[in-house]
């Protein structure tokens, strides 16, 4: 017959054995850590839409927050050169599905991710900015201007800058931004095209400010040396 004291000892012995097991388990698994990737895997379109639970904007903001802090969570500080920009590109476009009006993603792409030390990756940012902006150039023209800057000065790719500058020739875009298209052509040595763009801006713009007109005159005269041609053309038409 088990006495009360025996029962007490057996129970405490059992507890001691189990605690020892737990300590042993902890010792064996203490260095097992989750594999933390920098840029998380990109979910599918259908999964994203299912997970919104009817509130696209809420989930968009959650994922934006998630992406903004990707790689810098749980005590990590990751240099931008280690980020997978292909994955980031797909994330940017996926989030535009939830909210293409917001400027959060293009800001993040332009002012943060484009500062990567691995300059080749900036191509992904430019490609994204082009897709994002051409949905609605009249409100998103600023990001095309940023894309031109990144193409010309970071990537030094004038062909890419040319492609990105074309949608800016639009009378809903401010005159100075439209002039960027002419500047790109001037940088490529395509002076006649640059002149044609300036003339298009002058003819179609609803309202050109004085400073923009002055810049156009300076550009045509000093940068592409075509002021005489315009003056002669103007005299002939009279």
């Amino acid at each position, binding site marked *: 017959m088990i006495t009360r004291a025996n029962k007490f000892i057996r129970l405490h012995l059992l507890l001691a054995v189990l605690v020892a097991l737990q300590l042993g388990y902890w010792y064996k698994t203490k260095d097992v850590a989750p594999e933390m990737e920098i840029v998380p895997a990109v979910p599918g379109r259908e999964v994203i839409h299912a997970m919104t639970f009817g*509130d696209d*904007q809420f989930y968009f*903001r959650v994922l934006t*927050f998630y992406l903004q802090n990707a790689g810098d969570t749980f005590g990590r500080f990751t240099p931008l050169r280690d980020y997978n920009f292909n994955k980031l590109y797909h994330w940017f476009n996926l989030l535009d599905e939830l909210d293409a009006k917001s400027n959060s993603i293009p800001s*993040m792409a332009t002012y943060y991710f484009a500062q990567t030390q691995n300059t080749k990756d900036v191509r992904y940012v430019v490609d994204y900015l082009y897709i994002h902006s051409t949905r609605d150039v009249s409100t998103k023209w600023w990001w095309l201007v940023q894309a031109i800057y990144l193409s010309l000065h970071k990537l030094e790719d004038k062909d890419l800058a040319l492609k990105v500058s074309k949608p800016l020739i639009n009378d809903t875009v401010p005159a100075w931004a439209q002039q960027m298209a002419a500047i790109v052509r001037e940088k490529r040595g395509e002076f006649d095209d640059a002149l044609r763009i300036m003339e298009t801006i002058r003819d179609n713009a609803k309202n050109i400010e004085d400073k923009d007109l002055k810049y156009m005159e300076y550009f045509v005269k000093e940068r592409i040396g075509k002021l005489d041609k315009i003056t002669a053309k103007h005299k002939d038409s009279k």
Partner: protein
Amino acid sequence: MRTNIRYILITALRDWLFIGLFIGTLVATAISATLGSTALIEEKEMTLSFASGSARLILMTGLIVFICFHIRSAFDSKEIDVILSRPVSRINLVISYFLGFSFVGLLLTIPIIAIIAAIGVLNWAGFAVWAASIILEMALVVGLALFSAFTLRSAVTSVLACMGFYVVSRMMAFLVFTSHSGMVAEPKFAIFRWALQAISTVLPRLDFFGKSEWLIYGLKSAQDWQFYTAQAFIFIPLLLAATMIDFKNKQF
């Protein structure tokens, strides 16, 4: 009826429902403001989205738990029997419970709307439509919780069933989209397509309610408020009718 409504109000006060949900909403808003302040740009938009989404979730969850447990305890303690021993019809009882819980829900919703307004209104038309949709969603969830609580025997089962209905109803847009997608059009997926369509006919379209984008960008069109208003005015009476029919046939 008024007595029952007053009793529900007293129970809500006794259970610290108002204080609990209000504190929960304040904490959620504070966390939203902290997270929103870390955004690169559009801090207010992020704060508004987080606060409105989390507050809505807290409100609906709190109401579901409160209603399901209240009704089940009323059955278990024979309170329902006592009420029915008076000249109160079963239909009147269901309606009085609905009105009572809706009133409590309204008292809980008003501070949430005020908190969102205090964060800052970016678009007044959108804010008004969002506030109205939250109130209607609250009433619909009250109806859903009542139906679950009256038809199921256990409080926990009622809560789980109601939450399941809520989640699936919120995902209804996705289910409808899937039922129209190309893959499901194939004959071998016919059962799957019919199942999705059957589910979408009997559950409400809660994805039309409480969209945070209204707070930020305003309305896209009049359909934004028309859809959820029509859904609420059709489905709430439907739920109440189903509850009344089940309750009338119940032997206890």
